[in-house]
């Protein structure tokens, strides 16, 4: 990859990468930090990385970095159990989008990650498996569970629409 292509990667993927981390960590400072480190690593390997695979490479690096941050801070509690009990009355939220965002925040980290990669970035199951170091089956299970959990959370979306 050339220097020009590297800079093109910044233009093309920095926003998506930042959004992906921000949605997971909900911390602008930390998300910015990870984006910087991720592109720093890409630059170090710029001659070995192909432009076509740069996006996946960036997301993989950022994901691993994010996991490190989560483990380091130990501030994200897995809330898989009891999630359904926390379903909130829909009257709290103005619309489906806001309710989904709240639900997304409450998802366990892995479920949230795979769902964001799928719906926001449009990655295939196979690509998500590669980025998150999971099997295809695990990716499907996590996405399915995430969708079911969101469904439970938002209740009946038709009420909101």
């Amino acid at each position, binding site marked *: 990859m050339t220097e020009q292509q590297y800079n093109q990667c910044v233009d093309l993927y920095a926003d998506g990468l930042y*959004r992906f981390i921000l949605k997971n960590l909900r911390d602008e*400072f930390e998300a910015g930090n990870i984006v910087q480190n991720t592109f720093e690593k890409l630059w170090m390997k710029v001659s070995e990385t192909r432009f076509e695979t740069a996006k996946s490479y960036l997301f993989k690096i950022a994901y691993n970095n994010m996991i490190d941050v989560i483990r380091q801070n130990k501030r994200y509690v897995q809330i898989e159990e009891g999630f359904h009990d926390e379903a909130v009355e829909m009257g709290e939220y103005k619309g489906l989008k806001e309710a989904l965002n709240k639900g997304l925040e409450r998802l366990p980290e892995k479920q949230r990650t795979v769902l964001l990669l799928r719906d*926001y970035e449009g990655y295939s199951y196979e690509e998500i498996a590669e980025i998150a170091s999971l099997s295809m089956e695990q990716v499907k299970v996590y996405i399915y569970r995430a*969708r079911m959990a969101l469904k439970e959370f*938002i209740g009946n979306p038709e009420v909101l629409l």
Partner: protein
Amino acid sequence: MKELNDRELLLLAYLDGDLDAAGKQRAEALMAEDAAFTHEYRLLTGTRLEPETIIYTDKHKLKRTAKVNKSPLRFVIPATAVAACLALLVLLYNPGTKTGSSATGLVTPGDKEITYSNAPGTKEIAAPKEAKIINNPAKINTQEKHIQTPVKTQEPTEAETIVDNRIEPEMLVAKRAEINIELPELYTLTEPVYTEPIIIAAPGKKGFREWYANAEKKVNNFMGYLQKPKINIRRTGDNGQQRLVIRLKADKYDVEREVLLSVK
């Protein structure tokens, strides 16, 4: 982890648009005959996330430029150096130049006939018949000295060198560098619990991530009296001027410092 059954897999793949024509037909057939499946599908369509537009505003900090000398002389001097090298090669590989007799008619004492060759492997040719034997060592020496004078090649100057602002950790490892981080302003925030500058080893063989973690830990320790400090450390700089940009956020403080890296 409990795997998904066929029905769940079909539902998920249909929802994600991940089915081929046959699979899609199967899902639609199931929806036509199974109200529960249809109901589930309709509920799950509401869980599809719409991407939000979030802009990362510091893109300019991520971009890189390799500084290339654009002086009009940038081709002239290297070309001169190449020409000089070629001339040297011709002289070295041409034994005929040892005496230069063909041009001057000078031969070494005692030689009746001198053979010439223009390059290794070329056919030898006889010396010109008119070559005269002379006994003037001074002249011979002068001639030899002249020929053997080494041709000095032009070293590229700093201005001609392509400067790449990448910072390779290995470069620092080789020099076993240490990086001083001093945050003088922060001393004034509270009692100066630390009076010594923090020394953070440069990136080692284990890579930048570990180095970064160590750096962060040390700064964290340093900042221990503040509540949940967050540190953003990044390296920047070019042409040997490497800097560490440290941003600390804690409580009401948000301080950014640029520290010039010193290699010890």
